[in-house]
């Protein structure tokens, strides 16, 4: 068995949506260079028929191949997704999309979910919206310890 699935390597080789959104509606920054992974996620949100959609999303990542691949894949998953659905995503959705991650790399999928959470939190608080409990809890946990992101 190879360490990484072909899908992981594909995203690593050709990461989608990398870069910065200059006028982002929400920015999520998680991870810590000390631990070897940092992910920055930028989102642009659009309202259509009273529903919020993630219109655009970009990332910057410092980290191993699976950190880069999970970053890329989370942007693909959420691009065009209603915010209310994006909130419900978990690390398993990321892993399922990639096929599999080696046990010691599962934390990268958590990192991607965390980055999304932080971007959504940032967006919601900036707009003065009510932040759903799940997003608030996750944010609290993440801000308590900048160094902990699931491993």
């Amino acid at each position, binding site marked *: 068995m190879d*360490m990484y699935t072909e899908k992981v*390597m594909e995203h*690593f*080789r050709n*990461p989608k949506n*990398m*870069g910065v959104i200059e006028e982002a509606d929400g920015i999520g*920054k998680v*991870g*810590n*260079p*000390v*631990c*070897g*992974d*940092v*992910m*920055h996620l930028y989102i642009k949100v659009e309202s259509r028929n009273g529903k919020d959609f993630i219109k655009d999303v970009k*990332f*910057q*990542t*410092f*980290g*191993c*191949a699976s*950190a*880069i691949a999970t970053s890329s894949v989370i942007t693909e998953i959420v691009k065009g997704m209603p915010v209310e659905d994006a909130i419900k995503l978990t690390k398993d959705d990321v892993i399922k999309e990639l096929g599999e991650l*080696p046990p*010691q790399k599962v*934390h990268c999928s958590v990192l991607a979910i965390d980055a999304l959470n932080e971007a959504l939190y940032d967006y919601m608080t900036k707009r003065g919206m009510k932040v759903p409990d799940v997003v608030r809890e996750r944010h609290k946990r993440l801000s308590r310890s*900048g160094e902990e992101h699931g*491993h």
Partner: protein
Amino acid sequence: MRRVYMDNSATTPVAKEVLEEMLPYFSERFGNASSLHSFGREAKLGLDAARKRVAKVIGAEEREIIFTSGGTESDNTAIVGVAMANREKGKHIITTKIEHHAVLNTCKFLESRGFEVTYLDVDKFGIVKPESVEGAIRKDTVLVSVMHANNEIGTLEPIGEVGRICREKGVYFHTDAVQSFGKVGIDVDRMNIDLLSMSSHKIYGPKGVGALYVRSGVRMEPLLYGGSHEFRKRAGTENVAGIVGFGKAAEISMKVMESEASRLEKLRKEMVKGVLGIERSHLNGHPEKRLPGNAHFRFDFIEGESLVLRLDMEGIAASTGSACSTKSLEPSHVLLALGLRHEEAHGSLRLSMGRYNTKEDVERVLEVLPGIVKDLREISPFKKGYRN
């Protein structure tokens, strides 16, 4: 795609001459070297010849060479064997912070058995000060273990001086020479070495074979119990074909040692010069006192594994440091011991050149590496510096 193998510190291909010498021992001279009959005696002849060849490289007697299953077993046998056999004298061991895990984790195991271990610091090049060894030796010290060449950054340690100090103080001295054996000159007498670990697969011999030099008279318990093989110091039917291959590999290494060292040093210098042309790149380890073929770098703002995998996509095999820790999340203990910060230690790349590397290989790396570094920095949130 042309493949370039630049991970010779992790392992090497078996040399053609080595494999040729091994072949008859699989299905023809296949006897058990302990057997009385002609098949056994043929195997024994192969074993003895290999022992002679290995002994010669380090200036040892044949009976001081014990064949093992590799560098890891040699390290474990030396450290556990000496510690346990001499525990009446004391339970203190001295080693360094930059040893291979085969030494470090064995020392940790001994700590769980009531031993006390001093892990010496190194300077920013990875060199341990002989005086620090001297200062750490106590009445109850039974063993000093300092590696000859570091497997990640390639730094060569002053083991001759460490050996002299140990001899003066009457403490056994073990050195893990897995990376230097056959590449850098070693003389166990001149260097006052009591135990020395070797591994075949680092010198174009087969994997699964190694040796431990044990000076006559050194008190050591075996690690493996069973039949009375290897002067009763290591039980188990001898891997004759593998050992014959190791013997041949040792012989060749000795023959080409000098010419290879100067050839590889030239390649390394070219590599270092080229790579340091990339902005915010750094050489790790000592600029001169290092294994001829080892070039070890770090690049700000990017992470080593991504770098290795991107190089692999271009057919270039390299590593972040030691192969054994590639799947771990921890940054290298060696780089941290040099005083690097965690985030710096994550961005390392080891290019270890060997017998089959050419100038063209170096050029190929220098052709693709700058672009890869640039790409990865493009994705990185730290284009200008580390901040969160």
